[in-house]
């Protein structure tokens, strides 16, 4: 699997990252060498093998149910303390809805 520039652009979009043309060029090289390396996983026959999502136990073995009750948590003020831009008890962000 080789990544080209259009795929780098697509992935960058998904990941909300931006790169200069020079950085993209460097990335293509590095990503491709890493992907070449991980391609060796295709040498293995994994038909019928369950994927390991939880490494030590299944969710049935470690259910963590609790009663649906409110517990002490942050106040609104505490939640906002690290906010880059806040006001009226909210986090403020640039506009979400476009004018189109």
């Amino acid at each position, binding site marked *: 699997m080789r990544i080209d520039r259009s795929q780098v652009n697509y992935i960058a979009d998904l*990941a909300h990252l931006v790169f200069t043309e020079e950085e993209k060029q460097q*990335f293509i090289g590095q990503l491709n*060498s890493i*992907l070449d*390396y991980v391609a060796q*996983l295709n040498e293995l026959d994994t038909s019928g093998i369950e994927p390991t999502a939880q490494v*030590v136990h299944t969710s049935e073995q*470690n259910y*963590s149910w609790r009663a649906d009750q409110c517990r002490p948590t942050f106040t609104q003020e505490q939640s906002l303390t690290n906010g880059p831009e806040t006001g009226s008890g909210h986090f403020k962000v640039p506009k979400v809805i476009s004018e189109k």
Partner: protein
Amino acid sequence: MEIESLTSEKIRSLIDQGEVSASEICQAFIKRIEKCNPDFEALLHFDPEFALKQAKCIDRIKEAGDPLPELAGVPMVIKDNLLIRGLRCTCGSKNLENFVAPYNATVIDRLEAAGVIFLGKANLDEYAMGSSTENSAFRPTRNPHHRAYVPGGSSGGSAAAVAANMSVAALGSDTGGSIRQPASFCGVVGMKPTYSRVSRYGLVAFGSSLDQIGPLAHNVTDVAKILKVISGKDPRDATSLGVEVPDYPSNLGPLINGLKIGMPKQYQTSGIAQTVQGKIAASLKLLQDLGCELIEIDLPHTNYAIATYYVIAMAEASSNLARFDGVRYGLRVPGQVDLASMYRKTRDAGFGAEVKRRIMLGTFVLSSGYYDDYYLKAQQVRTLIKHDFEAAFQKVDVIISPTSPTPPFRLGEKINNPLSMYLSDVFTITANLVGIPGIVVPCGQTPDGLPVGIQLMGKHFDEQVILNLAFAFEQAGGFTL
């Protein structure tokens, strides 16, 4: 009072007998940090007043004649991806340079209740991504044994702080070897517990199915004591398991005669440096002399482990780092016309190159059309690797390996070749993939004075077995082979 010789046991005895106060011990370490940290940059930030306030609390308990908690007065440094309420938590990233933790990690609550003094926050590779601490957005940490060399990573600051006696012990986190490899490079003891042994609540997540928090210290006993305090089920971490926590330090004792130690034949390769091979061979001889039986075992999928690890780790990282978007905390690049631009400019400014690389790869392997070929495939190979270890542990009690194929390398030597950096994780990543515990202990130095560490891995929840083996190795002089 010589700082270098302080262990948690000595500190306890000094405080109990009224010879020194917790505040005096704290003050001595503060002085040591002020003197040494500029040389090694182990700590990103430290707050002497915060530490002294904690020390005073311990002193007041002593003065009142009340019983002291088990780690009273023991100073620790904490990797800067673990939250301590009121202190900054940067994760070694520009993104969180000014982020102040609003709550304590569970391990911090437990250590605080045990009387530990938090001296400061230790440097790390950004978001724990790296094997040398060179990826810290602020500055690299230097190996206290030799300043031109790396301390390892990503818990390089934690390991260096202990090695330089800026602290008695430290906490690190380990996703692919990030406690064990720096412990090896800095000549200290470091342990990654079984996955789900220690709560991850309050650890900034990197790879959620791989991450564990663990202790670093000069000796096995201190590692055992800290492990006991931090282990156990936490309702706030749904992956933590309610398996009983043994009294690890009290159970440290004589070795089981005939303990079976497995040596994976796939690990005995030409890729291991001569100086490392020599120390490993000497360690194996010592263990045989102690009555252990060395058995060759087969881990057939060893060659696929790194690829498996990196696909899974990068995928999980890309998901975990999506939260850093400039909305609720961290850096935000102001003045953007719309939300998407704000996300992009912010993440571009906040993340370093290695982090971006991993997010890109992770996003790719999870994206539609590639998920089955990469992520799902890796999860299946992970199962095959798990089966390898299950079969091996039918034959042996402990699996032994070098920690790193090479001794510590120089700053700048590997940083421009990410793949070469990833390949050096070969011995440590499998413990994270399979979830088993691993402890690294020093086993001597190269002729250049660089530390070498050996790794002992056990079955799930067999921390006591590997701690006991490590303890016996220590008592028999293994650390200075």
